[in-house]
C-alpha cells in the first residue's frame, strides 16, 4: 500500500486518488496534471514533485527493522526500529518508548508492511560455530511507501545521525 502524504499529518491512499480520477473522468474534468499526479503516486516518478505544478509528490520509503528469534515470520520479536522518511526521522534507542509495535513479522505484514530483506540463510548456515553465539536475532527489513506532497519533499533529504555521546 502506498500512503499519500498531502501534508505531514494528512495521509491518503492510492485508492483515493483513483477514485478521484474516476470522478473527474465522469465529469470530463480529468487533466494532464491529474494524470501526472496519478503516475507519481502509482509509479514513484517524482518529477511532478519538482515541476512546480503543486499536484505531484515524492515517493518515500518508511523502513522497519525487525529482529526475530528465528527466520520464521511467526517467531517472537526481539527488537524493532522504525525510520521515518523525513529529516530527524531516524529511529533510536529510547527507554521511554520501549514497547515493540508488533509481536512478530507476520503482524507487520498484516499491517501493510512489505518485506524487502530476509535473513540470509546461506550466511546463517555458515556463521554458527560449535561455541560462539553471534548477534542477537534474525533481521527482517520491511518498508512502506508514501507519497509526500508537503514542503519538505522539495528539500534534499538530510540524514540525521546521532553524535557519538557517552552512555
Amino acid at each position, binding site marked *: 500500500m502506498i500512503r499519500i502524504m498531502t501534508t505531514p499529518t494528512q495521509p491518503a491512499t492510492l485508492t483515493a486518488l483513483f477514485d478521484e480520477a474516476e470522478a473527474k473522468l465522469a465529469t470530463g474534468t480529468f487533466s494532464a496534471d491529474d494524470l501526472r499526479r496519478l503516475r507519481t503516486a502509482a509509479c514513484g516518478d517524482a518529477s511532478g514533485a519538482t515541476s512546480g505544478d503543486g499536484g505531484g509528490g515524492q515517493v518515500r520509503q518508511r523502513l522497519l*527493522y525487525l*529482529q526475530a*528469534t*528465528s527466520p520464521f515470520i511467526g517467531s*517472537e*520479536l*526481539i*527488537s*524493532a*526500529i522504525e525510520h521515518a522518511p523525513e529529516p530527524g526521522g531516524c*529511529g*533510536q*534507542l*529510547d*527507554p*521511554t*518508548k*520501549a*514497547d*515493540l509495535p508488533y509481536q512478530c513479522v507476520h503482524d507487520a505484514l498484516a499491517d501493510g508492511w512489505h518485506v524487502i530483506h530476509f535473513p540470509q540463510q546461506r550466511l546463517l548456515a555458515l556463521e*554458527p560455530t*560449535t*561455541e*560462539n*553465539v*553471534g*548477534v*542477537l*536475532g*534474525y*533481521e527482517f527489513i520491511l518498508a512502506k511507501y508514501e507519497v509526500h506532497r508537503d514542503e519538505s519533499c522539495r528539500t534534499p533529504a538530510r540524514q540525521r545521525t*546521532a*553524535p*557519538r*555521546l*557517552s*552512555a
Partner: protein
Amino acid sequence: MSRAAHQPGNEPPRDCLLDDEQVLNFIARGYHVIDNPFDDSLNAEIDRQCSALESDPGNGILDAVPLLHDVVAHPKVRGPLVSICGKDMAMNHHRHCHTRKPQRFAHNWHTDSAERGATDLRWVLAMYYPHTVTPDMGPTVILPGSQFRSAPNPTLESFANIRGQFAICVPAGTVVIVHPNIWHGAGPNYSGRKRHMLKFLFDRTSPNTEPTWNHDPATADALAERLLSQRVTPMDRGDVQKEAAKRRKVWDMLLGRQIAQV
C-alpha cells in the same frame, strides 16, 4: 589511584562479599546492582561537583572530584569487585565522568570490549550514579545476558529498543557493576538536567586459585546447575546451550578450576 582501594590487606569484610547466587547471577546476566551505601550528602556533593565541570576530565576525574575516592573505596563496592575480580583486583587508570546533557539523541548500542565472546572476565566496569536517574533522563541501558555474543559494534547500531533491556533508573548512590562486553547504550535526555555516570574500570591482576566470595560448596553445585542455564535474553533456542557452556567456563575459572589469562 584510590587512597584505600589498593592497600594490601585491606580486604572488605565478609558480609560485603557476594554469595554464590549473586556471583552466578552476575555471570549469567552480566550485571550486579549495589544499592546506595553512601550518605545522601556525599552523593549530593559529588553530583554538584560533577555538574560544575565544564567537560569530562577523563582519567583525571578522581583529582577533579576527590570525594569519588570514598565511593570506590567503600567496602560495599569493593566487596563485589573482589568477589568477581579477585582479592588483588586493581582500579584501572581509565575512567570517565559521562554526562548526558538534555538532548534528543540516543547513544547507540555498543560494547566497550574488543574481546567479544571471551570467558576470562579480566576486567569489569563499575558505574556510579550520584543522583536519582529517571527514564526521561537518558539512562544507561544494558541488555542483560548479551555479554557473550560476538557482535561487532557497527552491527549493534541497527538495534533500538530490545525486549529485556534494563534501563538503569536508580536512586542516587547506586553502583552497577557490569561485564565489559555487555551491550549498552543510553536513551535521549528529555529532562532539563544533566545526567551523570561515573565510570571506573577494575582489573583482575592474577588468576583465581579459589573462590573470592562467600562460597558454600554444599549448595553451590545445585545453584550453578539452575542459574547457569537460566534464559536471560530472548534468544535463538540454539544459543541456550552455547551460552550455558560459556557461563560454566567463567564459573569454573572463578572457582579456580580453570586458570584465567591475565
